């Protein structure tokens, strides 16, 4: 079997009984987290813009739980949903893979299925997650370094896999869906720091739904798109760094190993370890923001690569500005959604600190992979952050694993708190939100998730 055969067979032929309970259990938290983050998305500028786009597509008669107009085609529903899910850069992530969960949840919930049990959601999510991760692993880091945004380019494969599974496509149709989604794979890192970055997540979800529904309707495509010259791996990553990753579909299940990172801070993942470091130093040593004279960050090679803004003009750019997020963390003693408004980024106290941040990459901070060939900006190696204060004191700490990562997971209370904040930001009712969260934590027992979410329709 070639690579495409193996992926298609995995999607179609994996029996439900072969998906372990540990894997579906592990999917519950990221799915609940994602639904919260999608609902929060309309509070951001990107969320507002994508909603304005959706409203302009035709007459609006009713709205879905995401806030999107009802009656739009499923692929457009997925587009809106996952753009919202990534609008605040608050959705979960997996190193080297991107942000699969928002894409998968959006694709799954956008499909025109009358009833969809929690168990079906979990199964399709785990299958889609697995395909997303192993295709990303096969491409390898080379793909990202060329300028592609992996969330966008690879996310479509995961979404297509989940959609093919739920629509019960056969092997040929599934192969074609992979062929079609490969011809939709786009997304440039140059759009980071603009609303088009969250749009990438929406596009990936859309692409998966579109490809699966086109294949279901009889559209043919290359039956072996991952293989050979001018195939997806060839064009997007010179055949890929690790095509053998496809042999590891389901072994282990990526949702268990390495497992997702749920984000504690609503900004670029590459900033999370330095944020943890400054907050740790601040708490440990009682440092007041105004007493700081210098903040030095030694980052692993490539660790600063996505952080392309140094003087952010918008809240969104601030998410990709190391100087800003560290300064905001020190001033607020936390990093929350409110830190990324266009006014928050101009706080004088924060701006003073920003000028004191000095960051540079150091291969010694990535000893296992000094040239960053195999690991991403947010993981691999470690950060060393040093703060010097006006009294001449200098303190320093090293952070290897960010908060929310599998080595340092968020607590149940952290997750419930994040869900509550997200629904508040998205203008949803708090009491209903608490009930929804409780039901989502028992997702495997939900008879129909659409019925569960229907009550969250926002007003038009």
């Amino acid at each position, binding site marked *: 079997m070639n690579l495409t055969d193996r992926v298609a067979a995995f999607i179609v032929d994996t029996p439900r009984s072969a998906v372990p309970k540990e894997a579906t259990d592990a999917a519950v938290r990221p799915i609940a987290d994602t639904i919260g983050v999608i609902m929060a998305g309309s509070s951001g*500028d*990107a969320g*507002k*813009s*994508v909603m*304005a*786009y959706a409203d*302009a*597509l*035709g007459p609006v008669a009713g709205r879905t739980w995401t806030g999107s107009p009802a*009656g*739009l*085609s*499923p692929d*457009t529903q997925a587009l809106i949903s996952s753009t919202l899910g990534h609008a605040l850069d608050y959705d979960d992530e997996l190193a080297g893979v991107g942000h699969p969960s928002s894409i998968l949840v959006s694709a799954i919930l956008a499909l*025109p299925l009358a009833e969809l049990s929690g168990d079906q959601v979990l199964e399709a999510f785990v299958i889609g997650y697995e395909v997303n991760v192993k295709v990303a692993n096969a491409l390898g880091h080379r793909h990202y370094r*060329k*300028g*592609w*945004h992996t969330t*966008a380019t690879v996310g479509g494969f995961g979404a297509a896999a989940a959609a093919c599974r739920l629509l019960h496509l*056969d092997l040929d149709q599934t192969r*074609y869906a992979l*062929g*079609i989604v*490969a*011809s*939709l*794979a*786009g*997304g*440039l*890192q*140059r*759009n980071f720091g*603009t*609303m*088009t970055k969250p*749009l*990438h997540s929406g*596009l990936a979800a859309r692409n998966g739904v579109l490809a699966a*529904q*086109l294949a*279901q*309707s*009889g*559209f*043919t*495509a*290359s039956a072996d*798109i991952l293989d*050979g*010259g*001018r*195939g*997806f791996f*060839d*064009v997007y990553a010179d055949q890929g760094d690790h095509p053998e990753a496809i042999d590891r579909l389901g072994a282990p299940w990526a949702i268990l190993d390495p497992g997702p990172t749920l984000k504690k801070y609503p900004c670029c993942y590459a900033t999370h370890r330095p944020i943890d470091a400054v907050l740790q130093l601040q708490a440990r040593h009682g440092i007041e923001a105004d007493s700081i004279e210098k903040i030095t960050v030694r980052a692993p090679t490539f660790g600063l690569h996505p952080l392309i803004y140094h003087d952010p003009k*918008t809240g*969104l750019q601030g998410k990709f500005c190391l100087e800003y997020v560290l300064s905001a963390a020190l001033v607020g003693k936390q990093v929350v959604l409110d830190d990324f408004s266009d006014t928050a980024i101009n706080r004088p106290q924060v701006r003073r600190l920003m000028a004191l941040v000095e960051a540079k990459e150091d291969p010694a901070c990535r000893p296992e992979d000094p040239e960053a060939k195999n690991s991403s900006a947010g993981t691999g190696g470690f950060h060393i952050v040093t703060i010097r204060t006006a009294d001449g004191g200098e303190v320093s700490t090293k952070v290897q694993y960010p908060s929310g990562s599998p080595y340092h997971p968020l607590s149940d209370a952290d997750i419930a708190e994040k869900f509550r904040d997200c629904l508040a930001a998205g203008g949803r009712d708090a009491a209903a939100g608490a009930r929804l969260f409780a039901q989502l934590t028992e997702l495997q027992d939900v008879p129909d998730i659409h019925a569960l979410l229907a009550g969250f329709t926002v007003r038009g």
Partner: protein
Amino acid sequence: MTALTAQLVDFTCAPPPVAGDDALGEAATAAIVDSIGVVLAGAGSEVSDALHRYVGTVAPAAAQEPSDWTGFQAGLAPDLTALVTGTLGHALDFDDALPGAGHPSVILLSAATSLPVGQLPGSLLLDAFAVGFEVNARVAKAVGHKHYLHGWHTTATVCCFGAAAAAARVLRLSPVQVARTYGIVASLAAGLQRNFGTFTKPLHSGFAARAGVMAALMAEAGMTADESILDGDRGFLAVYAQGAQQGDAVADLGRRWSLVQPGTTQKKYPCALETYRAVDGLLELQARHGIAAADIAGISAVLPPGTLGPLRYPRPRDEMQAKFSMPYALAAAALDGTLSNSSFTPAAIARPEAARLMTCVQLREDVANRPEDPSGRNSSASFGGFVDVAVTTAAGIVSTRVHHPAGSPQRPLSAADRTAKFLDCAAFGGRDADVASDVLPQLSRLSEVPDVHDILNRLTPTHVLDHCAQEGSPRS
């Protein structure tokens, strides 16, 4: 160096170009009319059946609505209309081509006519089309030919910029919105040649039209994006040009219109352009020497390097594959005396005599047939160099050399050819012959038309073609 993106943005927003430029107006009108024809013909393709099933699935509420000129329900969302129109227009591989820049015209037409703007005056369509065509040509030039050699389908990856420009023009976006439109569409640019010979190839055309419409509508709705996406590190050219981006792509922007110079190639045959010169040579030899198909014992073609790359199906099994098969194109041309839509039906492909002729075909690429660019690095295989064709019969061997494909600027379709093609296309798409004859002269005076949709809607099919399954149920 003024940034490429900024120059294209200025160009996209410049005052209307077509008024007062007769050559440009004529060229744009001809390209638009040709594109309308092939969209109509698309209704007769197998792809159209699948497209109907798809639309029936994703927009069930629209199923009861009357159709518009494309034969699909009026009132679909603009992005879906663009997808449908663009896919239909490339379904038969009969739409025009600009060497190195894909198949722009159907995509531009699809984008410009799908937007929710109420009236669309002919003059605005012409402006949007001319600007979109030019942006398409310039981005293609900038990205260079290595892009195609790497495996991208330029029709998908580059024509989306043209569609975005046309859409931005129709929507009258501001310069900053246009810059963002390009930023967004760059993140939508995709399409692999490996999908040639499948239904996904025409989808690429629909994807490109839809990408342009989406990007422009999103920018209008307030979506931001990088505002110099073609330039610099990790920009569109840096990622997609494979290191071969051309710096002089906009040197004469606004002074030379690609629609006029070099001009587009309107297709004479509904199949891959790479087959044309060999087919032309064969037909010329048959006519000159009175050779019947049954007399042919051998057909040989010596081709410039790169010609056979996209022609992936030596023994095609269906109409999509047949359009990318040199042996089949030659066999069918020998039998039919030309290549028309009816040469590519399943019944035509199954002809035993076609099977016999395919076994007589010998193909070879030779660097000597592309002396100006032996490696094929800089030019499209349909246009560079020349093709040598020889036919063997019991009487001996005759041969000829063909430099320019039929329909190219050097051998353009005559007015009569173009009229015949439009009417053939309308008939293949199930349209009434009298209506098509009546509409054609109106379309030919496009600049005077108050609302293009009024005329297009006269081409709405009055009945559904027999083989168009409407039930919306997936094919198992």
